[in-house]
């Protein structure tokens, strides 16, 4: 099928994509690395000088940086926990026979299609606002003091908002995986006298493992970069209570205009993401062969 001729044609067809992605990835990245070794502040009118590892030292010894790593981890792990556990339960529920499956499915996946700025602002104002939000109205109706979510539990509130956005994704993937479960195998196990519980743990759970892994890896990639939700709700605060690595780099570079330190932070973020990506790629690569 593949002749010498078609091979050459194929190279030409792939080339534009490869060149574009290469430029998109390498040129800015190399520039960021270069900047990260400079003393380069846009607001200070002095010549840019070589800074060695000063920017990295500044970033790594900054208390906010350590805090931002912890906040990022809290968001990633918190959202993963809620969406994976919630997603499994929801997928199991929706995989059972009931009336109106199609409609419920549509309702459940809807939040995934809501743009991040909308979901964050709607939760912030219409639900979590301590004066006019729905939770405040409910609390007052029941005779309690309204709770100011975003100032008293900012990180948890953000985890809640982001989890609401990602729960549909986890549910949909786990449900898809459940539906591809081999029915005959289940029946055979049932006939051999396997109980509901043992069928769940020995057939369903191993089958779901792969889907759960995929959910965890893909969500981690997106969750490490959560930005818009923080930008429109807390702007990293109160104080630095919700400053993540992404947000910190943004603050350093485009608010304080410290290009050098911002770049160093960006490179640290890239290294952290690469550690996750390494495992993700191995996982997806394995599936490619199957």
């Amino acid at each position, binding site marked *: 099928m593949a002749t010498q001729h078609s091979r050459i044609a194929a190279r030409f067809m792939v080339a534009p994509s490869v060149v574009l992605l290469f430029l998109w990835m390498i040129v800015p990245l190399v520039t960021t690395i270069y900047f990260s070794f400079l003393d380069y502040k846009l607001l200070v009118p002095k010549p840019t000088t070589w800074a060695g590892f000063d920017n990295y030292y500044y970033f790594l010894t900054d208390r906010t940086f350590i805090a931002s790593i912890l906040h990022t981890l809290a968001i990633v792990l918190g959202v993963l926990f809620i969406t994976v556990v919630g997603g499994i339960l929801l997928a199991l529920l929706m995989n059972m026979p009931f009336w109106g499956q199609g409609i419920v*499915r549509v309702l459940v996946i809807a939040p995934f299609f809501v743009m991040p700025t909308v979901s964050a602002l709607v939760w912030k104002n219409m639900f979590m606002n301590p004066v006019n939000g729905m939770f405040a109205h409910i609390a007052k109706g029941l005779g309690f003091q309204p709770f100011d979510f975003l100032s008293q539990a900012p990180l948890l509130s953000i985890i809640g908002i982001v989890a609401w956005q990602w729960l549909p994704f986890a549910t949909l993937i786990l449900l898809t995986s459940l539906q591809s479960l081999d029915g005959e195998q289940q029946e055979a196990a049932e006939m051999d006298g396997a109980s509901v519980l043992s069928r769940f743990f020995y057939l369903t759970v191993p089958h779901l493992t792969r889907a759960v892994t995929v959910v965890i890896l893909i969500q981690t990639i997106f969750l490490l970069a959560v930005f818009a939700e923080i930008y429109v709700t807390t702007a990293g605060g109160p104080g630095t209570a919700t400053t993540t690595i992404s947000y910190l780099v943004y603050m350093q570079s*485009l608010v304080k205009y410290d290009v050098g330190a911002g770049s160093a932070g960006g490179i640290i973020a890239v290294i952290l*993401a690469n550690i996750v990506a390494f495992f993700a790629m191995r996982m997806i690569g394995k599936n490619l062969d199957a």
Partner: protein
Amino acid sequence: MARSTTTKSKVIVTIGAWLVGFLIFFPILWIFLMSFHTEGDAIKSPFAMLASPWTTEAYQAVQTQNSYGKFFMNSVVISVGSTVLALIIGIPAAWSMAFVPGKRTKDLLMWMLSTKMMPAVGVLIPLYLGFKVTGLLDTRTGLVAIGTLINLPIVIWMLYTYFKEIPVEILEAARMDGASLSSEILYVLTPMALPGIASTMLLNVILSWNEAFWSLQLTTSDAAPLTQFIASFSAPEGLFYAKLSAASTMAIAPILIMGWFSQKQLVRGLTFGAVK
């Protein structure tokens, strides 16, 4: 006996599932309901708001005071433009990788995917400064370019998994029957590839529509899409709940409808074919 217990459990599951579905969907329903009330009524308690008269005031206010149409058009141009461009560049690439695979095809695909895993903040500063120097800051062109590059790996991957499923034997059979290359492409390949291309397009328009890192960083007003417009409500003046609801409803409605049509493709596209 057995039948009555299954009916009973089906009723219970139905109630449970609908309740959960309703709760998850509730915030979206609520902004929809709120958007049809006045600013004064929108901040009342939930029942008082529902009991107050309905009006389309907020929709008119968003159109006239905030020129909603401009942001909507920017969103359309940026999301459709970047998707179409990515398809034009990606289709030949996915095509040749699926049908003329070489020794390095798999590595190449993995490498393309790895570009998706680069955190945006790692390349933010050079791009921001580059855009500033070249005057691309706050232009649709700039955002379409970024969007194309963000979409490209997903486009190639999705198309690759779709094209892979087209049996090569059919092409060979057509060739045996004396089909020319052009009729082979036109009558055999295109009809089989179109559904895959369509769903790839749909998913990528959705993803670009909702993209909210680059659009927040690189636009301010002229090229600002809806993500940026909605973000402007984070520091509003005066009462804004009804207006925010109206703007949000209009911003998410088209994508919600498209999204519901692309459920199955969503799984495939976002898991890069790992879960089907």
